[in-house]
C-alpha cells in the first residue's frame, strides 16, 4: 500500500521529532491531504525512509490518538478518525489575521525580518519542546 503522506524531518529546527511528525499529520488533515478513514504510514514505512527510532513514530501517533484525531486498529494500522478545520475555515482565518497584525506591529517597532524570525523560533521552541510548561 502506498502511504498517503510522506514525512519530512528538520533536524535543525529544535523541535522534537515526534512533534514534527504529529504536526505534519495535523497539517495534512487541514489541507485535506489526509481524510477520515485514511491509513497513516506504518512505523516501519516511516522509519525505512527517515532512519529514526520507531518509538518516535509511535509516540507521535499516540499524541494524535490522545487528540482523538487518529485511532489504532489492532493488527491493521492507524487510521484517521476526524479531520481538522482547513485553511478556509473561520478559526484559521482568525489566527491568520492576528498573526498579520502582530507582524505589522513588530515591523513598525523597528524589528527586521530576521529579528521577527528569531522571536518566532524561540517561542516555537519554548512552546513545543519537551519539558516546558
Amino acid at each position, binding site marked *: 500500500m502506498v502511504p498517503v503522506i510522506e514525512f519530512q*524531518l528538520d*533536524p535543525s529546527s*529544535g523541535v*522534537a*521529532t515526534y512533534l514534527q511528525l504529529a504536526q505534519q499529520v495535523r497539517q495534512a488533515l487541514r489541507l485535506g491531504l489526509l481524510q477520515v478513514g485514511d491509513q497513516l504510514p*506504518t*512505523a*516501519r514505512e516511516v*522509519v*525505512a*525512509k*527517515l*532512519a*529514526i*527510532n*520507531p*518509538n*518516535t*513514530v*509511535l*509516540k507521535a501517533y*499516540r499524541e494524535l490518538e490522545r487528540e482523538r484525531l487518529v485511532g489504532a486498529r489492532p493488527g491493521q494500522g492507524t487510521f484517521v478518525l476526524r479531520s481538522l478545520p482547513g485553511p478556509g475555515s473561520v478559526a484559521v482565518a482568525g489566527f491568520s489575521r492576528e498573526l498579520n497584525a502582530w507582524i505589522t506591529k513588530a515591523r513598525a517597532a523597528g524589528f527586521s525580518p530576521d529579528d521577527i524570525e528569531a522571536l518566532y523560533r*524561540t517561542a516555537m*521552541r*519554548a512552546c513545543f*519542546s*519537551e*519539558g*516546558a*510548561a
Partner: protein
Amino acid sequence: MTTAIETTGLGRRYGRHWALRECSLSLPSGRVTGLVGPNGAGKTTLLHLAVGLLAPSTGEVRVLGAPPRAPETRSKVAFVAQDKPLYPRFTVTDTLRMGGWLNPGFDQEVASGHLARLGVPLHERVGRLSGGQQAQVALALAVGKRPQLLLLDEPVANLDPLARREFMQVLMEEVAETGMSVVFSSHLIEDLSRACDYLVLMSQSRIQLSACTEDLLAVHQIVTGPSSHAETITSTHTVVRASYTARQANLLIRARAPVTDPAFTARPVTLEELVLAYMSQPDAAIAPALRAVRSATEVSR
C-alpha cells in the same frame, strides 16, 4: 526479558592498563541504545565482553539474562564487529548461505530482501563490493539470524553519507519490524540523536552516563544570563558545562527544579549539545538518581 545487557562491576585489563573498569549498566531491551565516547573510551571492549569475544578481568556481564557464551544467548544475539569482517572471496550468496549453515532458523529471504532492493549484486565476491555494500551484507547476515539483540561496533564510521543513511534505514526498519533491541557504538552524534532512545556515554574506560534520551533531555537545559548572577544557578543546579564571557554566562545544567530566576533564559538542550558537553568534561557523571526517573510517557511496544 526486560534487560538486554546487565553488567556488574565489569572490568577488563591488559597488563596494568584497564580498557574498561567499574562498569555497571542495565540496558533495557526494546530500545536502540547508542554507545558514545572518544576513541579508547572502552566501547569496543564493552561490546566484545558482551558477545563473549573477551572474558572479564573482574565483574560479570549477562546478556538477555544469561552469560554471553551460553548456547541460548549465542542464538539470540548478533554482532557486527568494527570494520565489518567478512570473507572477501565468498560471494554475497555464499555469505548468506554461511549464515544459514552457522545459525539454525536463519531467514534467507529477509537477509537477501534488503540486499536485492538496494541492488547489491548477489553473485559478486564480497571483497569487490563498495564499503557501503559490504556494510549492508554484514547487516543482512546479522539480521537474517532474527536476533533479539543486535550489537554493532561503529557500523557507519567509514561510510559515505548516502551509504550511512541507507544502513540506518535498513537497521531501523528491522527494529520496527521485529522489536529487537539494538546497541551500537558511534562517534557520529547526528545518527545517535535520530536513532537512539537510550544513551550510554563512556570516557576513559568508565561509564559517564547511562539513561533514556527522553529523561536526559527532560532534565538538562541551557540557561543564559549575566555572569554576575551565575551564582544563583550554579548553587542550585549541577552545572555540566559552563562558559563565561565578561558579561554573559552560558551554562548547561542538570536542573533539580525549574529555573525561576528571571535574569536567565532557559532553553531545551539538543542531544548533540548534551553529548558534547559531557564529552568535554570527562569527570562529570550522571547521578544514579536519573536512571530511576521514568517519564510518564515512557514508550513500550
